[in-house]
Structure formats: C-alpha cells, structure tokens
C-alpha cells in the first residue's frame, strides 16, 4: 500500500512567535502558579494522544529493537546476540525476497512513477473534461483493496480473464499472468499501479498548474519543441515535487504486501513474488519466530530510514 507522504502546501504557514521566555521578571508565586496551571492544562490536552503513542507506537519501536536480539522459547526469553540475523540471512528465501522487492520497486518506479506523470501532463493540456479525467484516475484509489486486487485476479485469469481476451483480439500470445514466475511480479505491479496512481496524478497536476506560463512562451521563442519544453521547463519546474514523490514511492513500494498477498497468495510461483514484508509476515505469523521477523524488519527499517531522512530534508526545503 502506498504510504503516507506530505506535499506541503505552497502557502507558507505563519508561525506564531515563541511564548515569552522565563527571562521576564517574575513577581514571586503568582506567575509561577499561573505557568504551572497553564502547563497542566496544556498537558491535559496532550495526554490522550501521548498515551496512545506511548503504548502503540513508541513502545513497539523499542520492542522491535529488543526482539531482534532475543529468542522466546516455551515462555522463556533469552538474549541471543546476532543469532536472529544469522537465521534470516541463511534462509534461502532471504536473497530472493530482497531481489523481488528490488524488482518490484524498480518496476513500480518505471510504471508507477512515469505513468501518473505522463497522465498528468496529458490531462493538463486539455481545456475540456479535466474533471472527468481526474475523477477516473482517482476512482480506483477509493476501492477497498480486496475488491481491486481480486478484480485483477479475474482479469488475469488465463481462461476467462479479460486481459488474455484482449491479447487474443490483438493477435498476441496468451499469457499465464500470475502462474508464470517471469510475469507474476509485472502483473502485481500493473495491478498496484492501477490501484494507486490516482493520488500521484492529482499531485502532479497541481504542480503543473503552478508553472508560470511565461516560461513556456520564452522556450517557444527559443524554438523549443514539445519534448524540449518538457525537459527544460516542466521537469525542472516540478523537480521538487517529483523527487518527493519518487522517495515516497520507494518507501511505499519497498513495503509492498497486500497486492502480492492477495494476487498470488504471497509467495507466488517459485517464490517469484515473495517480498521482504511477506517474509516478515511469514516469520511472525506462520512460524511464530518473532525474533527473526524483527531482525529482518530492522534491516528494512535501516534501509528505508535513509530514504525517509532524505524525504524529510527535501520537504523541509520545499516548505521554505
């Protein structure tokens, strides 16, 4: 599933000035009591959310680190050093899962990054039916994932599926989309792109509409054609949004789970759609090996933390 992201609005938020510092002279207890009361009220407003974060977010984060170095057998928990990491790295599925995840990410970037951008470019040129086209691309985003994914399972069916019917019509060879190890990942990516491209398309459209028209006019005076205008005006002007979306897509697609889980049962033919997150899921919920699941999770976390940090840096840059 696509993950959270921020596209900061272009309007710079007005920051209210910092509260008066303690440097102001304080006439004894009256002010202190007021400050205390103000803080108690403020913390009262905060406490509900903080408790939820503490129990369901911060504590699990710490626990993830601990679990990775522990083993629990028949109710006894012991420290095992790097054993869990060794178990995971020696699993024959380990490299396959990373390879598949990388393949999915690359394919999803080629399709899931380029297709919405091109769609936005095309939609933005029209003076008619823009609303209808926007509505269409966003429609799949609103479907429950189970409906969207199982729908694709039928479209991909080698016998009665619509896709092979289309291939027959075009005179192309029929394919065993989800049963062929060479095609299964591509099939998953196509379904995933269809389901998720709406959000990215709308964000690109918003970015395209903020490009000053004079830039295109200037480029035309220099004799630039369509492709050169895209390359020299459109892309540089939307670079920040494009890079943010790219990072967000990498973070989201590296965590892919639902699409392969529902389309191919997770592993897929010859393990061709086993992803890292599916492997984590298997360790934890099929083999009850929480230590191995946490160890693998920690590896994914470290990798994605790099991308997340870059994302935060970039979105700060845009905020300014």
């Amino acid at each position: 599933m696509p993950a959270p992201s921020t596209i900061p609005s272009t309007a710079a938020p007005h920051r209210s000035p910092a509260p008066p510092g303690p440097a102001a002279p304080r006439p004894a207890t009256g002010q202190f009591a007021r400050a205390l009361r103000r803080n108690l009220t403020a913390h009262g407003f905060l406490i509900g959310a903080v408790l939820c974060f503490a129990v369901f977010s911060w504590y699990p984060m710490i626990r993830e680190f601990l679990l990775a170095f522990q083993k629990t057998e028949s109710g006894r928990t012991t420290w095992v050093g790097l054993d869990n990491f060794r178990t995971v790295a020696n699993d024959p599925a380990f490299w396959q899962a990373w390879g598949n995840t990388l393949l999915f990410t690359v394919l999803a970037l080629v399709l899931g990054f380029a297709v919405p951008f091109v769609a936005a470019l095309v939609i933005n040129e029209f003076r008619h039916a823009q609303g209808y086209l926007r509505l269409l691309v966003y429609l799949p985003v609103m479907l429950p994932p189970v409906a969207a994914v199982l729908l694709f399972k039928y479209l991909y069916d080698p016998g009665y599926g619509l896709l092979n019917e289309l291939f027959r019509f075009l005179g192309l060879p029929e394919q065993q989309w989800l049963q062929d190890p060479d095609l299964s990942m591509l099939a998953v990516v196509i379904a995933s792109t269809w389901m998720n491209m709406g959000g990215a398309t709308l964000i690109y459209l918003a970015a395209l509409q903020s490009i000053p028209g004079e830039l295109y006019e200037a480029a035309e005076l220099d004799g630039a054609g369509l492709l050169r205008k895209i390359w020299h005006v459109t892309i540089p002007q939307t670079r920040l949004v494009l890079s943010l979306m790219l990072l967000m897509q990498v973070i989201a697609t590296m965590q892919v789970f639902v699409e392969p889980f529902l389309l191919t049962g997770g592993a897929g033919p010859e393990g061709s759609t086993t992803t890292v997150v599916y492997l984590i899921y298997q360790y934890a919920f099929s083999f009850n090996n929480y230590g191995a699941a946490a160890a693998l999770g920690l590896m994914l976390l470290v990798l994605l933390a790099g991308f997340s940090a870059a994302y935060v840096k970039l979105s700060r840059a845009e905020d300014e």
Partner: protein
Amino acid sequence: MSTRTLIAPARLARPRGRAAYRIVLGLVLVLFTLVFLGPLYWLASSGLKDAQEVIQTPPTLVPGTFTPENYTRAWEVMDLATLLLNTLYYAFGALAFQLVLDVAAAYSLSKLRPVLGKAVLGMMLATLMIPATVLVVPQYLTVLDVPIVERNLLDSPWAIWLPSVTNAFNIFLLKRFFDSIPKELLDAASMDGAGPLRILRSIVLPISRPILGVVSIFAVVGVWKDFLWPMLTLPDPTKQTLNVGIYSLSNGVPVNVLIAALTIASLPTLIVFLIFQRNIMSGLTAGGLKG
C-alpha cells in the same frame, strides 16, 4: 482554464491544431474510460452472469444470462451486512478518537505550548520515519498484552481505535493549520475570560473546518482500506472488516457470487467519493497526501 500549458494556444486556434486537439482528447477519453471504468463495468456485469457464463472462454461483454440473485446470495452467504456494519463501526470510532485526541494534542502543541511540547512533537513525527509494516509485529505483540493495564485487545474494536490515534501525519496537518491562526484572535478571547477549551470550541474549530474535513477523510479511508492490521487483530469472523471478511471467504463461494460481493463492497466508498469528490481531491493536493 486560463493557465498556459505546454501547447501554445495559438497552435490550438488553427484549424489543424483544433482537429488534432479533438482527436487526441477523444482518444484519451476512450482510453481512460476503458482503463479505469472498464474493469468496474466488468465487475458489476459479471456479478449478473450465471455460474457457467462467468467462467466461459471467451468472456461475454454483455451478460447473456441475468441472475441478480448473485447479489442477494452474496449479501447473505458472506454476511455482508455484518461486515459492513463492523467496518463502519471501526472507521467512525477511529474518526471520533482521532478528532478528539489528535485535535486536542495539535491544539496544545500549537497554541498552549507546554514544557517539552517540542520534544513530544518531534517524537511523534519520528514515527513517520519508521516503516509501518516493520512495526506491525511488535504492535501486534503489544495488542496481545497491553502493558500496565495487562489486557488482550484481540477481537476488540479498541485494537483498531487506539492505534489509529497514533497518526502523526494528521497531527502534523492539524498543528500546521492551527499555527496559521493569528494569536491576536485567541488573545482577545482570552482577555474576555474564555478558557482554552472554550477557545478551541468556539474559535479554533470553526476556523479549521477545511483541515478537519481532510483529516476526517484520511481517518475513515485509512481504516476502510486497511488490510493487514485488521486481519491480524480481528480473527473472529463475526468481527471482521469488509476487506478481511471477503478475503477469508473468497475461496469458498462460486466466482459469480464473489464478484457480486466485491461489487457491493466497492459501492460505499465509490458513492461517498462521487458525492464528496471535490473536497476529497482538493484536500488531497492542498493538505498533503495519504493513500
């Protein structure tokens, strides 16, 4: 729309340009309709076919048989009414918790500014850096045995509601909006003797309606579309969500009945989307994106 785009308006004004524009527009309209509405048409129409026609090769574009009973059967066999009500219950419960707790927290962080507020905000935003799927395992273990209160929340709606509050992104959106409310406005109310709660209710919330709408949509859609978390924490079939319930029964029912069920399951969000499309799509690009 008057914004200047890639193609010069002068070129479109010429007869040849106009013709080319019409052709491309027509082609794109057909292509997009086929790609995005086609599968949905196929879903709804296959739900009307009988058991034989639905798996026939080649498939029929217009149903030759007409068996609307599939829809009633799907409704009964898969107990869609229960699944739908469950999902509504979880989604709107999560919405209520987020609106109360996250709005209060964002208000406190933005306007009341307690000691350590910055640190708390930083720790909340730090959770955005942790991939959600990595946290699923320790979160699941936490739900099995919640610390301090020592309760098992499996199969309880709390397992959905409370973790949904840890939505740092929504808190961030709310806080950023609250930050933009002029301090003078609140100071004036404060001078008149209004307490923080009163100020929140009668000044901050009315101004913040647009962002509250965006946050609410994210909250409801988030629960509605979630799959892994409800699958793990709500194993009892009578308590499952639409997504999980249909998935777990998907192998036991005939294809045409399952397709009918998928059509029914798609309808609520599609209808809500068609009604609120303007708010949803503008909120998405104005405030940020969460899909």
